[in-house]
């Protein structure tokens, strides 16, 4: 049940992201990439298996197996991925703003195909 809900949520995020990216407007492109990176980050996180109420830090009270703890590695990976995608989005935002100022259009080609 939990897995199905998560899969639906990831699918919705990805579909929304891809749709927005294909709209070929710089703002939509950035929003689309952001949604896509949310989906990817959640996907990385859940690849460490869905665990509720388990800590990723071994405290010595329970045997250090995945039955008692959450997998810490995907959490570290997702942190890296979040930071990187945040930085990349910032760069793309700056480029999009400058392109908008230079070309006067927010289309990714710099001008609207249909006038």
């Amino acid at each position, binding site marked *: 049940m939990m897995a199905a809900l998560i899969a639906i949520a990831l699918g919705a995020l990805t579909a929304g992201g891809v749709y927005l990216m294909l709209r070929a407007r710089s703002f939509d492109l950035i929003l689309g990439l952001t949604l*896509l990176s949310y989906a990817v980050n959640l996907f990385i996180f859940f690849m460490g298996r869905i665990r509720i109420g388990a800590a990723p830090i071994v405290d010595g009270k329970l045997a250090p197996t995945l039955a008692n703890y959450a997998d810490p590695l995907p959490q570290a990976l997702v942190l890296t991925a979040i930071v*990187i995608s945040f930085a990349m989005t910032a760069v793309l935002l700056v480029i999009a703003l400058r392109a908008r100022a230079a070309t006067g259009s927010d289309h990714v080609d710099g001008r609207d195909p249909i006038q």
Partner: protein
Amino acid sequence: MSWTHWIVVPIVLPLMTGALLVLIGRQAPGWTRLISLASMLVLLVVAMLLLRQADDGAVQAYLLSNWRAPFGIALALDRLSALMVVLAALVGLAALLFATGGDDRRGVHFHALFQFQLMGLNGAFLTADLFNLFVFFEVLLIASYGLLLHGAAVARLKASIHYVGFNLAGSALFLIAVSLLYGVTGTLNMADLAERVPGIGADRAPLVRSAALLLLTVFCIKAAMLPLNFWLTDTYRSASAPVAALFAIMTKVGVYAVLRMTTLVFGDTGGLAAHAASPWLPVLAMATLGFGALTALAAQQLNAVVAACVIASAGTVLLGIGLATPASVAASLVYLVNSTLAGAALFLLAERIAAVRGASADRLQPGHLSGPRAEFGAAFFVLAVAVSGAPPLAGFLGKAMLLQAAGNTPLAGWVIAVILASALLIMVAMARSGSVLFWHPARAHTPLVSKEGAAGSHEAQRWSLAGLIALLVACSVFAGPLSRYAQAAAAQLFERRGYIAAVLGAQPVPAAFDVRREMRARQTGRP
């Protein structure tokens, strides 16, 4: 020379230099050039040293932060990595020298970004961890975004949006593939993956195969394989010449990653995931080669012809990898070295030619050439021979080795036809460009758009070009050692055991002062 830390120098040195250059970029702009060039020279020397170390056949592993291999991140140096690091240093040095002719003065942080890009390139070539490979990809990409925008023009901004957006989508796919592999196998260390992927059961094999194909997609975005290469021409054309020259090695990062994964993890021994890429790679590579050759023929500007040649070269190299025999991979490596040097040199030459042709720049139309015609013509001729893979230069040797290696594969007929036809098309394209540029002087004297004109600056650009051409000739003179090295590198890739044993067997260095044990002792001592 038995210092074990040499292998991490190609990553740390550009990082430190880049950080220093960011700090002094505004305060002491006079020093940036000098520091950047000096660091580049040291990097080249270290890369040569690593090449000599790697050539004894042993794979060197280096444990970052002293963590044992599957748990921490490891670096590994084999013949292939060493070759790529040396190639990156050579192309980087030439591009940097060319940039001191004036391109580096159009923005403050050119040299810092250049160093960060080198750090990303070297890191990607040396790492033995898939997630770390992703991180280095992002490092080199974010530096390349900055370099591409350097001295921003409107065309550059437009090309940048396409390039950045496309690569960000590619990064998302990379992360999906990496986490899928982690979810199924529980590891991201390449050597450990190579051990575990064969043991995957039939229920999970489709997941691993789809992860393998996702990785192939991502790497082929970088390597400019056919359905994924439409970003390349505009991006490379709009970049300034030294940046485009450096980008010529950037496409080879994708090629390197494809080669590493297909031989180490998804090769013959990949169990149910073996040869996941085999049905696709050779066919798409041939299509890329044909597409590159046709684009070269259709191009209206010299740097568009060169960008098409870069695509064709990636296609040829990927074809050798796709045929997946030691002989074809060796041929690919020989060709890779030559075509990368030739592509980089052609981007630089195109810029020099555009600078002396006034208003016609590098458009393929009759125009006035107000420079030393013989010098440019000779350089263009040598590079045209090199890039089309004609004898007597070593690009021909690479192609001949590839034709020979293709002889006993099922695709032989197609491979031979596509390679020969595309070589002919590229030769025609280069001949057409050369005859228009050098033999059709326009009578009307177009006014020269004067670029910045410090007398010494062109000297640096000439030296850089001369150096690259000399390297190409040297590759042909020393073709014997080069092809021997390429064959040894290919054999090492297919043998696999050495790489896996070195990475997984690397022992942490006993620390002089063990912080972890100290902390544990303190915890138990004072509960």
